């Protein structure tokens, strides 16, 4: 995965609770056997006025001008502000792929669907939990100040206003943080413990041979 240390970027707001992964990337795009190409179909049903199909030329499709993320002021946003339970529902990893490939590096919300949360960190998409009141303030500032940016600092575990008017600390599991900071391969790290896994396995399967 791509390393994540400190990122400064334009913030875009998506002010609704329980945004599910079906909304982030609809099912017809899950037929692809690739890891790439999902960006233009991120939030497809809200973003366009027609129904998207895999392989269609998305640049020719009619945009939904009512969808907030289509507003010109949010073009190029790389930080997404969201509400509670963002990414609930389906385990499709195509959701963080679509968000990343649509340009987002970080998401800030009060809470997330569990599977989406781990999928995102596994792909270098930094999902940050902040208390409701702080998220409210960010939504407010995002609406009030065109071009509103935030500094996302994984080293200091901090979300900061670019003028340093405020800084909010966030929590992240130490192991996940280290992996993201270094862009390490998770599988490679686990395989360092191959001998331990093999030892566990042989004991486990000997005790319960019906599992083998």
């Amino acid at each position, binding site marked *: 995965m791509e390393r994540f240390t400190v990122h400064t970027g334009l913030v875009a707001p998506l002010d609704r*609770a329980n945004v599910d992964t*079906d909304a982030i990337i609809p099912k017809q795009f899950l037929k692809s056997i690739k890891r790439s190409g999902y960006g233009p179909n991120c939030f497809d049903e809200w973003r366009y006025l027609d129904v998207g199909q895999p392989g269609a030329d998305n640049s020719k499709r009619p945009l939904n001008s009512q969808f907030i993320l289509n507003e010109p002021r949010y073009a190029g946003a790389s930080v997404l502000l969201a509400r509670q339970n963002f990414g609930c*529902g389906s385990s499709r*990893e195509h959701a963080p792929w679509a968000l990343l490939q649509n340009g987002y590096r970080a998401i800030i919300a009060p809470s*997330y669907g569990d*599977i989406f949360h781990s999928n995102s960190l596994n792909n270098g998409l930094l999902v940050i939990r902040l208390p409701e009141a702080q998220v409210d303030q960010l939504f407010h500032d995002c609406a009030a100040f065109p071009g509103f940016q935030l500094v996302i600092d994984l080293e200091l575990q901090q979300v900061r206003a670019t003028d340093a008017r405020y800084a909010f600390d966030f929590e992240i*599991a130490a192991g996940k943080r280290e992996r993201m900071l270094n862009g390490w391969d998770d599988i490679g790290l686990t395989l360092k*413990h191959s001998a331990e896994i093999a030892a*566990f396995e042989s004991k486990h399967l000997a005790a319960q041979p019906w599992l083998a």
Partner: protein
Amino acid sequence: MTGRTLYDKLFDAHVVRTESDGASLLYIDRHLVHEVTSPQAFEGLKLAGRQPWRKSSMVAMPDHNTPTTPGFTVITDAVSRTQVETLDSNAAEHGLTYFRIGDMRRGIVHVVGPEQGATLPGMTVVCGDSHTSTHGAFAALAFGIGTSEVEHVMATQCLPQKKSKSMLVRCDGRLATGVTAKDLVLAIIGKIGTAGGTGYAIEFGGDAVRALSMEGRMSMCNMAIEAGARAGMVAYDAVTEAYVQGRPFSPRAEQWDAATKHWRTLVSDVDAKFDHTVVINASELIPQITWGTSPEMVVDVNGRVPDPDREKDSTKREGIARALAYMGLTPNTPMNEIKIDKVFIGSCTNSRIEDLRAAADVVKGRRRADNVKLAMVVPGSGLVKAQAEREGLDKIFTAAGFEWREPGCSMCLAMNDDRLEPGERCASTSNRNFEGRQGAGGRTHLVSPAMAAAAGIAGHFVDVRRLG
């Protein structure tokens, strides 16, 4: 020593090592694989020059994309076909246990796993699908994972996992006739909310759960994820044991005795402490039906569409108003006056033999209402289909104007040709009523199989117990 929960026992028995930040490396016993979330994982494995760690842990089958058209032989959608063929070749290359199209044993992975005995008590079970929580019904620790994790399990047989908090949902009393496990789990989601279980592993317990069949327990654990919990589970008992015995992957002879001796310990100790407990009086419950675009948006069948003006919280108010606009519903409309266009009986929640029997009981000797354009019944597996046909259920459905289909995920997520058109309203036994879930612009109401069947006969929602 204080007592341990079932979740403690399952988790602790699979810990290979624990890191300084509290994350554990968890050993995985069973890995179920389907066509949608595996191709990138197999590709990643190949690119890194790795091999699956323990091939015998993997059981694979296509289910999401497969057509349900009776007697189909080819998948006409080229993109879907490629995805299924990719699984065909990955399974062949690695020599995996594989139920291909045409194999009687093929079906929805969460129906087939238990049916084959590939899901056993005490196991850790993963699959690149959020409804893997289903398998927790067997006193197993089962949860959905993403594609990176699918690759991780293939390559290492392990997953880095942090232990969740534990929640007991105790269902006291006994469900009334005509009220099912589906109604119970919908009511639970309505009570705790779709994020109520986030960060928790839920154990469903209490007399009402003990009285359920394995099919009913699977329906409940299946929807644990709709309450936000990655894993749901039910303690082992005689019902579990009777279901598991004699299945193709189940232990036999002397291994059976050793296995059952171990499995009988797979219950929460009486003095076990849960981080949170929720109590439901199941005896008072009546059939449930969702009105909105989140499974927590649920009411009694006798209830009404909610009025956003009565909601004080502004985010919730806007959420209700947005859901009603999408669903094309007017506040305060009685639920049983809402007319439907389609019926879907199927999905990993409700496509097992007991579900089909319950639906067939309702439609027997009746006809689909004229305003219902399509009522489809999609068995969960080829074996469920064959069993239903032996019992004559297919004839009951077709005589009532319900279509009898081939097994698969079908219109639960509409990756194949089975879908709602924009604006169509569906009584569905599936698990998600999200916007566009059953087709762009489609409107889903989640109900039990009996309630879906009753709506197909009446043409609108109706309390199945009053159908007469």
